[in-house]
């Protein structure tokens, strides 16, 4: 397969997006005169002249129906785009476009008076509610009750590389070089709206500088680039989304409000768990974060209830942000558990042991593996948990209050169907292995090569790997911590079938394509990874500033294909979890409807100086119920529970309980 990405850049035009400055209403007019008069500007696209999308498509994805109508659904929506000979001309052209609007009242924030609805499903297809036993009765009788509300803020995925697209329309086929976690997903979502076959939209993503979920699906900028390319045949069109534009156009995590009620016996054994979530989505495209789904599986209790309630607002569309659901939900659950431990006077680890279920409380199925308690115990050993004073605010070191905290972590094991891989024999005992999936910096190229070499029984140096190209065939996104297991299963299937068909010493040029085989046992089990997160937090006695000198995660995550890559993934997760615990916070201005902390100076992610001694360990294991490699997937689990461990440690240090993220100095200043 020829490699194509290099050629696209030459002779490119630059595209710049023009965004709405109202949250709801209609575009009355796009005045492009001044922009078109600007030297270097080639054209201005708007709803009057953009190619038509979505013909014959039922319920097209409105996020991708760019420049198709006058309707403005959120502040920051693409309402025009400027094509020019240079980036400077395009940007200035965009500043010169004058858009006039008929503005309507918009609802851009939710509060006590907002109308809420229970959605049909939460992401990706979980029930929005669950109800076992009689929660209210159990809570009424429970001897110990924790009844608190926990909040997580809007959070924006901020990979270092913002989104970017280069698009070329050659009259028949559209080629996109796209910063994407799933080239095939991008091709298959754009193609039908463009009236093209998937095969005629070729998306490559050779190098990607991170995504955190925001590059999991095509967003409006990619479609705008495709449209612009169609209007400028045979010239590539380049679009680089700015950091500020990312805060409106490439997804984010909803704010969540979790009302938790735990009912327990005095020894901490749970009798009732009630998790009521309020969160938001855009009115025009639903994304319901699955905030309470992990609550259904974590701990045993006779009586359990979860519900998600959604506010539908005139806002940018939320989307996948690493560990969607688990991250905010487990923050709430694991801080509530810490509060219960304090209320019962039980050690937080012992409390979790006492509530360990034997089967999945939600489905009644056995877990393929559930080794949470081992993770907690191994972590306790590594973290010197035995030395920990029971009481809060009982340890100081110089000007710092010192505390430690723990939280459980979990992440569902997912194996995505619909992955396909191809094995071709080459000269001299070499094999070409193709899988359309992408390496977004996690090292999946290395892992795929190892898996292919293992499955073929050859040295990795004998495997030429081709990835990151939608024309290779169906491949799911690098997301949901599912990549290694899902693509790997297809690679293993293709390798096994190849050997079955062509033997151990095939002639060059023989080829086998296969999809992953289903594992029947998967249906009968609950498939989850588990972990335990430990944090030491120091809180400055005067200013209240926080430091996290030690962070440890111990995980049960299936077989580890490559320890170097795995450790780096766990570290990344723990650090992202720390960042959500201490820093990340998008402020949406309720008067305007857009996020105003829209750069990396005002939207803080952890800096190097915030990261102390971070450690990750894992239990040796294999899980063949999930995948033929025995892997379960490990990208996101490091994030889950980390913010709770930090909040719990901050409580232990100071005696001050913080129930809203991020945990910041103002809560502790004295």
């Amino acid at each position, binding site marked *: 397969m020829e490699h194509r990405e290099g050629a696209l850049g030459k002779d490119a035009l630059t595209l710049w997006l023009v*965004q709405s*400055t109202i949250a709801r209403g209609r575009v009355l007019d796009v005045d492009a005169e001044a922009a078109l008069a600007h*030297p*270097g500007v080639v054209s201005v696209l708007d709803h009057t002249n953009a190619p038509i999308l979505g013909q014959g498509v039922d319920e097209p994805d409105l996020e991708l129906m760019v420049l198709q109508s006058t309707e403005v659904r959120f502040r920051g929506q693409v309402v025009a785009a400027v094509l020019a000979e*240079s980036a*400077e*001309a395009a*940007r*200035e052209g965009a*500043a010169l476009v004058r858009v006039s609007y008929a503005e309507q009242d918009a609802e851009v924030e939710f509060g006590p008076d907002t109308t809420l609805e229970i959605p049909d499903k939460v992401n990706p297809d979980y029930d929005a509610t669950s109800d076992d036993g009689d929660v209210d009765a159990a809570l009424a009788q429970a001897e110990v009750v924790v009844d608190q509300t926990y909040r997580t803020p809007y959070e924006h995925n901020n990979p270092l590389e913002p989104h970017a697209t280069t698009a070329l329309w050659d009259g028949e086929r559209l080629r996109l070089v796209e910063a994407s976690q799933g080239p095939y997903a991008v091709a298959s979502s754009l193609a039908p709206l463009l009236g093209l076959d998937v095969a005629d939209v070729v998306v490559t993503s050779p190098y990607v500088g991170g995504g955190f979920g925001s590059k999991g699906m095509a967003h409006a900028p990619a479609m705008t680039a495709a449209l612009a390319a169609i209007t400028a045949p045979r010239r590539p069109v380049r679009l680089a989304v700015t950091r*500020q534009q990312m805060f409106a156009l490439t997804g984010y995590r909803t704010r969540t409000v979790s009302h938790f009620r735990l009912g327990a016996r005095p020894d901490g054994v749970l009798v009732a768990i009630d998790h009521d979530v309020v969160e938001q989505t855009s009115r025009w495209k639903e994304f319901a974060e699955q905030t309470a789904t992990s609550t259904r599986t974590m701990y045993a209790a006779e009586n359990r209830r979860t519900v998600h309630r959604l506010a539908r607002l005139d806002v940018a569309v939320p989307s996948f942000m690493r560990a969607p659901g688990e991250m905010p939900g487990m923050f709430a659950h694991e801080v509530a558990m810490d509060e219960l431990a304090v209320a019962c006077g039980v050690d937080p680890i012992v409390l979790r042991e006492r509530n360990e279920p034997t089967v999945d409380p939600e489905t009644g199925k056995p877990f393929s593996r559930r080794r949470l308690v081992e993770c907690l115990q191994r972590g306790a050993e590594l973290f010197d948990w035995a030395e920990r004073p029971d009481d809060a605010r009982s340890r100081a070191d110089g*000007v710092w209050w010192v505390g430690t905290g723990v939280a459980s972590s979990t992440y569902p094991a997912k194996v995505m169907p619909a992955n396909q891989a191809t094995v071709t024999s080459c000269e001299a005992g070499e094999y070409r292995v193709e899988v359309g999936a992408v390496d977004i910096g996690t090292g999946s190229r290395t892992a795929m090569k190892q898996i292919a070499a293992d499955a073929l029984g050859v040295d990795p140096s004998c495997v030429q790997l081709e990835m990151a190209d939608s024309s290779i065939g169906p491949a799911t996104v690098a997301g949901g911590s599912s990549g290694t297991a899902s693509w790997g299963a297809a690679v293993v299937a293709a390798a096994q079938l190849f050997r079955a068909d062509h033997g151990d010493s095939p002639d060059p040029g023989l080829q086998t394509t296969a999809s992953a085989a289903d594992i029947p046992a998967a249906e009968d089990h609950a498939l989850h990874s588990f972990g335990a997160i430990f944090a030491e937090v120091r809180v*400055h006695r*005067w*200013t*209240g*500033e926080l*430091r996290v000198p030690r962070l440890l995660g111990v995980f049960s995550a299936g077989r580890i294909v490559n320890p170097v890559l795995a450790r780096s993934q766990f570290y990344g997760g723990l650090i992202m979890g720390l960042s959500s615990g*201490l*820093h990340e916070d998008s*402020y949406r*201005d309720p*008067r*305007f409807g*857009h996020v*105003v*902390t*829209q*750069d990396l*100076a*005002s939207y*803080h992610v*952890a*800096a*190097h*100086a*915030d990261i102390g001694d971070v450690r990750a360990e894992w239990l040796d294991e294999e899980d063949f119920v999930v995948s033929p490699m025995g892997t379960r997937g490990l990208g996101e689990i490091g994030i889950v529970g980390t913010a709770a461990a930090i909040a719990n440690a901050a409580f232990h240090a100071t005696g001050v309980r913080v129930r809203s993220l991020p945990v*910041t*100095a*103002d809560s502790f*200043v*004295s």
Partner: protein
Amino acid sequence: MRPFAYHRPADPAEAVALVAADPAASFLGGGTNLVDHLKLGVTRPGTLVDVTGLGLDTVEQTDASLRIGTNVRNSDLAAHPALRAGWPAVSRALLAGASGQIRNQATTGGNLLQRTRCVYFQDVTTPCNKRESGSGCSAIGGYGRYNAVLGASGQCVATHPSDLAVALAALDAVVVVLGPDGERRIPATELHRLPEEHPEHDTTLRHGELITAVELPSSPLAARSTYQKARDRASYAFALVSAAVGLDLDEDGTVRDVRIAWGGVAHKPWRATRAEDALRGEQPTEDAVRAAVDIELTGANTDDQSAYKLPMVRATTTYAVHRLLEGSR
């Protein structure tokens, strides 16, 4: 593209003449603030006069003072042995700001004249009196975590972001300025102004006035000074609040003289003279410092989002004094 003229004169007087003659001209130092603003459309100068070719990049020490050329880079200045020995608060303030890369690029004058980080000032789709006189102030009733709590007006509640400026205000620095009519010497406390009815003006400089140097007088206070900054991450964040404190004690431990200036609380570095007055002649106990801070804070204005700043100023100032008493800086 929006073309602009670019000059890189070698002579300060020429630089002044170029800017003074053209209302749409700006000086350009390291560019770490101005270039961002060009990209965001916050400012659109027709002419940039690059001052980094003017020399003015040395640090000279006399018995009585340290004279810092405007083009001395923040990282070089922070590491200068004379500054570290005689004015540790200034070195600490510089090191508490921005990142290593930005400090390598940023100049002394540019640092003092960096503009507010108010998120609305930087977002041209929202009203902002400082960016566009008379358009309104979006920060009032909006995102307020970094808003001023002292000396704000109904027109603007922004804070000045420079850490360096706070240390200079505390230690009686003088800013040396060259204008069309010759040289002026401005006390650092009078370089920046309160917003009042004209938030579009950050400083008392007139158009075309070039900062050429900063002078720091030597004193026991300056030698026993420190800078304490509270922020939302361990590095690379603007101050929530900060305190520069210089302390000179009598033999019996009472305060002979003291300097206190705060960052993150006002449109300018806030010299806390009333707190200084209250402390002079007192034992600098934690209670005494807190009480002195409270005197200065009478008249502070806060809302839900900025209320934390008052206890934090108290804490930061107290901690700075504590460090000085402990002998650390």
